[in-house]
């Protein structure tokens, strides 16, 4: 009895550990900024010198703001784009950051694909993305009152939006 019980218990423990461990997505990093004030942000407009928007602009917004890092050279950004257009139609305020993109390429991207952004700025040297802990594109932050509430790496589509964003957006709007 005892002899068979111990290996069986070990088997169960290993099975549970593997079930949990293999179910995780190792490429998904939680942001260290969740529920933290957003890092500094002051970016020029696409292709220009003047300021596009700053941290203060986003912090001053009433309600929830989405901040989206994108690039015209990023294939998943094309996949995501129609849904950003849809979110804009639903009334979400989205700030766009063009990451290490050529200004004419960014502009052409927004002309051809549509422009869902309330304001667009350019992170020309990629420094701001690193300050924000961004590692994959596109990446979208949910911000309210200057505090980061959620981050999603990779394209947001209807499914991610319903599953991941909606519960947070609902709790924030209460």
């Amino acid at each position, binding site marked *: 009895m005892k002899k068979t019980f111990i290996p069986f218990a070990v088997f169960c423990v290993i099975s549970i550990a593997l079930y949990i461990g293999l179910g995780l997505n*190792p*490429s998904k*990093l*939680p*942001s*260290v900024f969740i529920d933290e004030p957003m*890092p500094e942000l002051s970016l020029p407009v696409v292709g220009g010198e003047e300021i596009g928007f700053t941290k203060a602009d986003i912090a001053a917004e009433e309600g929830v703001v989405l901040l989206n890092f994108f690039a015209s050279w990023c294939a998943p950004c094309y996949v995501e784009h129609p849904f950003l257009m849809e979110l804009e139609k639903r009334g979400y305020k989205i700030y766009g950051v063009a990451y*290490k993109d050529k200004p004419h390429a960014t502009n052409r991207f927004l002309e051809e694909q549509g422009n869902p952004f309330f304001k667009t700025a350019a992170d020309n*040297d*990629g*420094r701001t*993305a*690193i*300050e*924000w*802990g961004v*590692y*994959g594109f596109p990446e979208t932050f949910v911000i309210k009152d200057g505090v980061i509430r959620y981050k999603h790496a990779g394209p947001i589509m209807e499914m991610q939006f319903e599953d991941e964003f909606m519960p947070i957006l609902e709790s924030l709007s209460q």
Partner: protein
Amino acid sequence: MRMFASLILWIMMSLTVLAVGVDEKRLANPADEARAQEIMKQLRCLVCQNQSVVDSDAGLAKDIRIIVRERVALGEDEATVLKYMTDRYGDWVLLKPPFDGATVILWLSPALLVLIGFFLVYRNMKSRKLAAVAPLSDDEKARLDALLNDGGKE
């Protein structure tokens, strides 16, 4: 022919060495550059995930190398530069995870497995020894004596 082949091999190998950092400025001070390299080896490339920032050709890894060199040149020590990175990307950016509550099992599991192994070997040996030294019963002794005394006669 063989010399030619080894020459080609040698060129190819030097090219791979050049591939990283060919468009980057190394630090003028060799000691600083060595320190920067040491730090970069500990940082995970966030795009490719199982490479260090030193080995990666990803744009983000390159930007991180530039930042590490800048900070080293400013005189920051290793812990400060690593903290700068973990403040932004979490402990995940370190190839060697820190020892804390979340990783205690990860760190202790090799030692634990060795201990379990020793225990199993010890138990196994003990039970064998016991079997080997089990004394003969009177019956067995008598039979053994009989065999030894009569041995060879039959």
